[in-house]
Structure formats: structure tokens, C-alpha cells
């Protein structure tokens, strides 16, 4: 079964995302900071990573760059969840290789659509 990883330092956001995308088709796991997220990604090789940009330890952009630099994770999808509305952040995320981004506050239905799309590709 495929794995989806949620990396966010806010427990309320992890709960929201987890509740939104809960499905029998894949396993959902959570990480509370960038360093833990990168360790779990290396171990579990998730199909999709939902990354918060502003996190303690490694920030989301760092984790994204590590995923894109790893030859064994070419098919890994990454959706950025960010509270930073600035265009510079979004630009940097897209350049680093994110498949999509959502800004907080986001619509859970919107998120679910993006997750399904990403896993279908």
C-alpha cells in the first residue's frame, strides 16, 4: 500500500489534513519537523509528501530539494502547504520541484482533490 506523509509542526493542521485525506487506499503518516520528515521519507519512500514550508529543523524547501536530488525518489509527489503568502516563497517552491502548493487557510475539499490528482498521475 502506498504511503502519504504529512510534515507540519502545528498539530491542529496535521489533524485537519489527516482527517481530510483519510482513505483506505493509502497509509497516512505524520512528522512534526523537517528532520523527522526527511528520515521517514528515506525509510518509507512515500508516494506523496504534504510539506509545510515553515518548520523547525529542516524547513520544507530543504526537504523538497533533498527529495528532488535523490535518484530513488523520482516519482515522489510533493504538495507544499504554506502560510507564507508571499510570491517569493511559492516561486522558490515551484523552482525546487513542487507539484502543487496550497496556502493556509485552505479548503479541505480542495486539498483532497489535489491529493487524488497527485496520486493518479
Amino acid at each position, binding site marked *: 500500500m502506498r504511503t502519504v506523509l504529512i510534515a507540519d509542526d502545528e498539530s491542529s493542521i496535521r489533524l*485537519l489534513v489527516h482527517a481530510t485525506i483519510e482513505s483506505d487506499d493509502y497509509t497516512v503518516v505524520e512528522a512534526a519537523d523537517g528532520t523527522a520528515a526527511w528520515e521517514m521519507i528515506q525509510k518509507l519512500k512515500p508516494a506523496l509528501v504534504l510539506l509545510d514550508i515553515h518548520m523547525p529543523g529542516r524547513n520544507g524547501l530543504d526537504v523538497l530539494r533533498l527529495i528532488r536530488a535523490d535518484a530513488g525518489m523520482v516519482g515522489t509527489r510533493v504538495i507544499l502547504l504554506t502560510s507564507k503568502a508571499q510570491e517569493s516563497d511559492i516561486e522558490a517552491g515551484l523552482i525546487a520541484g513542487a507539484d502543487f502548493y496550497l496556502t493556509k487557510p485552505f479548503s479541505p475539499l480542495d486539498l483532497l482533490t489535489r491529493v487524488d490528482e497527485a496520486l493518479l498521475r
Partner: protein
Amino acid sequence: MEMQRRERAPKATPERRGWSLRNYMALFIVALLGVAFGAEVAFRGMAEADARQTAEADANFSARVAAAEIANELALLERTTASVAANPQAAVVLSTPKASCTLTFAGGILFTAGRLEIVRSDGTVKCSSGPLPSGAVYATADWLPIAVHRPVIAAHFTDPITQQLSAVVAAPVGSELGAVVGIVALSPVGPNLLTTFGGARNLEFLVTTSDTSTIVARSIQPARWVGTGLAGTSFASSAGPVERRGIDGTTRLYGRSVIAATPWTVYAGADKAATLSAADQFSNRTLAIILAGVGVMLVMVFVVYQRVSEPVRRLSLVMRGSTPGPAVNAVAGHGAAEVTGLAEDFDELMASINRELADRLTREHAATVSERNYRTLFEGHPQPMWLYDVDTLAFLNVNDAAIAEYGYTRDEFLAMTIKDIRPPEDVPKFLELYSTKSPSFDRTGPWRHLLKDGSSVQVLVTSHEVTFGEHNARFVLAENLTESQRLELELHQSQARAQSSAELSRAKDEMVSMVSHEMRTPLASLVGFAELMSTRELTPEQRKEYLGVMVQEGRRLTSLINDFLDLQRIEGGHMQMRFAPADMGTLIVRAVRQGKGDDHIPIETRLPDDLPLVRVDSGAMARVLANLLSNARKYSPGGGSIIIGAAVDAGMVEVYVQDHGLGIPPDAISRLFGKFYRVESPDRQMIQGAGLGLAITKNIVEGHGGKITVTSPGEGKGTTFRFTVPVARQPAQSGDVLIVEDDGGFAHLLEAELTAKGLSSVWAADAETAEHLMARKVPRALVLDLLLPGLQGDAFLTRMRANHGLATVVVVVTLKDLEPSESLSLQKAGVTAVLRKGPGAAETAASIVAKSLVAELVAS
């Protein structure tokens, strides 16, 4: 310099207390002589007594020895006569007329002359060791009739043959046939005694009959004295030792002894004069020794006087100035080392005093010159200058240019403060600028200054911190603004405004971005869960969980907005702090009680008993304490105690909050009080916060004129925050009315109303502070809010009445309508009036207080 020529003027000899060394030495000499004289007299007396005793002992001894020897020789003679008489030949010789016999007399030491004879009872001599006398020579001798019967030691008798006084010793021969008789001459006995026992001591020996009627022997002129009587002399009358002047003109001391088996007594006389002269000689020697000792002491006293006292006197003369020249010369060559040392020290002292005086004169001269220069500069300067007192703002001095320019006289200036030369509308701005501590030198302006004629000038003010007499003062130079200066100034000001508005706008952008970022997370939760709940079928458990998160995030958003608005208000200077005396201990205890979480971290409170009241806005201070306590708890995830305490330090009360939690990395400390700053580390990611609390705290503390600092020994070793607030200065000193009210706005209004009625007031933000204030001074009136943060109004009232009685007018204000029972209990407590808070309540309260106080005055 003049100083160096100055001579030490001679001074009158000061009154000296105590004796001079010379007096002490004189006293010492007199005492010495007295002791020597006493010793001599005592020695002499003792020597005489000793000599007399020795002489008496000598006389007694000599008398005993002489008596023993006389007795001894008489006994020898007795034995001789007895042995001859016992010889049977003696009786034969006596009874046989034709028989012849030979006898030999062997003299003793004393009895050198004498004869041994056999005498018939008729008094004729049969045999003799000497020439044989014819006829009955002893027929009349009284001892013979006795001697023919028994042995006789006859006393003296006059020898019929030699016609000398002699002694007789006889022993009987046969039955009345006759006797063996020893006759010894007494006259040589005296001289012999002298030769044998007298020695060189000039003794006199005298042998008398027991009744002292007859002298038997004498060592001096025996031929004259032997046989004469002693009756009427001291020998006859005295039983003890006898002192007597002898015929040779020598006074003697006589000892006596009875001669055994004879009727004689021996006297031995020691020469008193000789023994006394020996004693005299001894006394004279001791006198010589004493005199020598006294002499040596006198020499020593003289030397000491010469080496110490005299140099000291000379030194004293030099010190008094009556003898010129250095002190060392005055005592050199005479004084002991100590005195010379003293003189050197004195010279050194004088030299250093002279140098010091010269220095001071130079300095004084320099100061005078500098003072003169300053005067010239100040008085003659073409621009207005003045000095004013920093504390009272009163003018201390003004120069001529100021008088000419401003139109006030010097006296008018000196009666004014620097507020008086400014237009009234400028005064608040001036005071505000003035209340922030001015640097020691600054240049400000343009200011408007009022001239006496009512017009005003624009000036630039340059001021220096100086000390003027006793005053902390500032020296001010006022320059009239020229047209070009004014234009330049305006240009500068508009440039500065533009620059600061650009900075402000940049800061605002940053702030907006930070705030929007901080708000998006809770908003995302709120919106997301709301949408989820409206679009999905959820179990009641899920629904409850999601709603819980929504409430929590909503609260987080609210507090974030509140913090943000507070900060904006404080930074923009819109937050009005209302300062009142407050008891920091009460504020701390209340904050600890309200801030108790469910995490069971113990909070220890350390408050000294004598903490003074502080001048704070109680609400703002409660916020500061709550923030610091909440931080301490939040950043102590592993527990550990929290300590909050206060102490007095240099006119401020310092409050500290110490935890044993995560601590702060050193590089973060400088940014800790910035907005939206949070320390990033894995152990803190679970701890929520926007990073505004400390920024708000810092702003509030600084708004009170205090300082906040943070120290941490390092990560994981805990953190200590310390902040200071000023001690309330002399509260309640002029307070007619005490306002106990936690609502600062209402209290402020009431203060203004009371002031308008001529009443001074002191405001306490809680009942605990009010109690502290009342302990110092009981106010004439009290305006009391019933609803207070800690101790409630009614409880406070009860306690106050118990402690201070009913003397104070009390007006109670309250937010809600009172129950009848509550009103009644307040009336019982002596409340003058109860007012409901609302428009006009402050004015009404002030009127009631004023009227009641007047009525009270009239009544009393």
C-alpha cells in the same frame, strides 16, 4: 612666591598641662636623696643595735669562760690539797715533830703565785713550798678551825706572809691534826684573765664576792682595787647587764657569771666605744656606697636631661617659631636619636605643608583666573546666556545680553523658572522632552521664547550640564534663529520626517506580513474543520474533537489579535498608563494565584516584609507578571520549580522570575524582546506562541521608567527575567482623599474632580495597597469601589473600621444595583453615600466628599 618667604611667627607659650620633664627629674633627685638618707639612718641604727648586742654577748661569754676557768683552777687546787691530805704521810709528818717534808706549788693559768703548805691546828706551818715561816702565822685565820675538820674553799683573806689578798683552799689531815692548805694570791688573777681571755678586745675582768662587797680581782690596776668594796656602784644595784664608765675613762658593757663552788662572781666588761666605733666604721662604708650610688644617678639624670629634655625644649622653640631655622640644627649634636628623628620628621612635615600651601595658592590663583575668565565670557557674551537649576528649573544667573534681549530685569529673571519664558502651549512639549534624561551636552530647537513685551522669538538652545554652587545646573546659550537657519532647519525636519515615515512604513509592512503569517495557521484550522464538518458525515467523537480544536485555535487567534493591538497601542504611545502607588507583593501574589496552571509546577514566592510601594499601572503590571509567569511555565516542560521574588535596589523595586527550564541560547538573548521572535529548537516546537509577549512586557516596563533584562546560564539551565519599577515617592503625604478603585479611567476622572474642589487625592488600585497607605496616614475621606481585584471593598471597609474607627468619610461606588441587605450593612459600616457608576458619578462623588468634609469641619 609670597608663601615661601613667610616666617613662622613666634607664638605665646601655650598653657601646658602636666609637669615638665625638668620637674619630674627634680622630683626624682629629691626622692633619690630622701631614700639615701633614710637608708643611711636605718643602717646606722641597725649597726649600733647590732654592735651593742654583740658587745653584750661578748661580755657574757667572756664572764662565763672566766668563771669556768677560775672554778677549774680552784677545783684543781682542791684536788691537790685533798690528795696531799689523804696521804698517810701527811698525818705522820704532822704528828712527828722531827719529820721533814717538801711541797711544790704548781701555778695555774690564773693563779700564778701561791704556796702549798701543811699547817698545824695551832696555826704553825710544818711544811711549805715557799720559805717556811716561823710561829703560828695562821693562828688568827678564821678558816683554820674549820679546815681541820673538813675541806674548805675559803674566800679571801690577807696572807700574813705576803700581806696580799689571797684565796685559801684547805683539806683536813687526820683528826684535828692540821690541814693541807693552798694559798694563792688574787692580785695576778685580774691581769691573767685579761691576758688569757681579753685578747685585743680591751675587756675588763672584775671578780667580786657574791655580795659584791669586796673586789677579789681586777684586770685594771689590781693593786689598787683588790680588796676594796663595790657597795653603791651599779654592780651592786643591777641584776642584769651593767653599763658603766670605768676608771680608765672607758665605758663598758658588763656581763656576769657566778663561779661554781665559790662565793665569787665574775664580771667581764666589753669596751662599748670600741664596738660602737666598729659599727660606725661599717655605717660609714655603707654611707660611702650610698653616696656613690646617688652620685651615679645624678650624673645619669643630668645626661638624660641634657640629651632629651633640653633638645625637646629647643625643638619646641623651633616649632613655636620663636627660634628660626630648621629643627634638626637646633637639636643636632645634643639630642638622642629619637629626638633627632622627631626633628627630622617635623622638618619634613613643615616642608610638605609649605609645598601644599604653595600648591593650593597656585590652584586658588588659577581658579580665580578661570572664574574671572568665565565671568568675562558669560557677562560680556553678545548672545543671551543663563544658568538654571535642573531640579527646580529656576534661573540661577543670566548675562547682560539676555537682559537686553528679553527685556526682563535680572531680579525678574531670578524670580522665574525657564517654563515662564515659554508660551503656555509649548510647556507640555518642553516638559516631556525635559523628563527624558538630557545628555550632558545637547542642542535643541527651534523653541519659542517669550519676551517681556509679549512678543516671542525663535531660538536654538545649546545647553551643558554644570555644577553651580550647590546646584545641579545647566548652562544655556540661546541663539536667535536667522532666516537661512530657519529654512535649513525646516528642510532637515521634513527630510527627517520623510525618512522616519519610510522606516515606519517598512516596519509596518514587515509587521503586516508577520501578523498575516501568524494568523493563517489558526485560521486554516478554523476554516478547514468548519468546512469538513459541514461537508462530511462525522461520528460524534470526531465532531467533538474537531470542535475542541476549533475553540482552541479561535482563542489562540483572539489572544494573538489582542497582543498585537496592545503592542500597537503601546508602541504608538496610545496606551494610557495610569500610575498609582501599589504594593508589588500583592500584585505578585495575585498573579501567582491567577496564573496557576494544571501542570503542577510549583511557584515559590520570595517577598521581603519591608517592600516599599511602587508607582505602577496595576493592570499593565499584572500583564507583565502574567506574561513572565506563563513563559516560565511554558518553557519548563520538564517541570522544576519557578521562583518569583522582589527586592529593593537603588530607588527601584526589582522583580525576578526564575525558572529551571529550557534556558536561552546566548545568541538569542539580544533578539528575545523583538516582535514575533521565537527561539527555534526541537525541544520548543511543541510550545505555542506568537512571540509578542516579551515585546509587550518590555514596552510596559519601559513605560514605567524601568528596565528588563534576561540571563540564562545556557540551554537547559533555566532562565531568569528581572525587571525594575520605580518606588512610589512619598505617597499619601498630601492626600485628603484616598481613592480605592481598580478602574484607572474612573480614578483619573475622580482625581480631576477632587482637584477642582481643592482636594488632593491618592489613588490605590487595590485594597491591599490602600491598607499600606492607610498604615502611614489615615485620609480624611475614602472613595471605595466594591468590586476589587483581590480583597473586596466591603471586607476592606470592615477591616478599616476595626483598625481606624469611624472618623473617615466614606463614599462607596459600585457597578451593579445593590440588594437592600447589602445597602443596610454598608450603612451600618458608616458609609456616607452609595453611588452607581455611570455618567456624572465622579463629579457627584467629589461633591459629596467635599460637602461632608466641610460639614465635618463645621461640626468639630
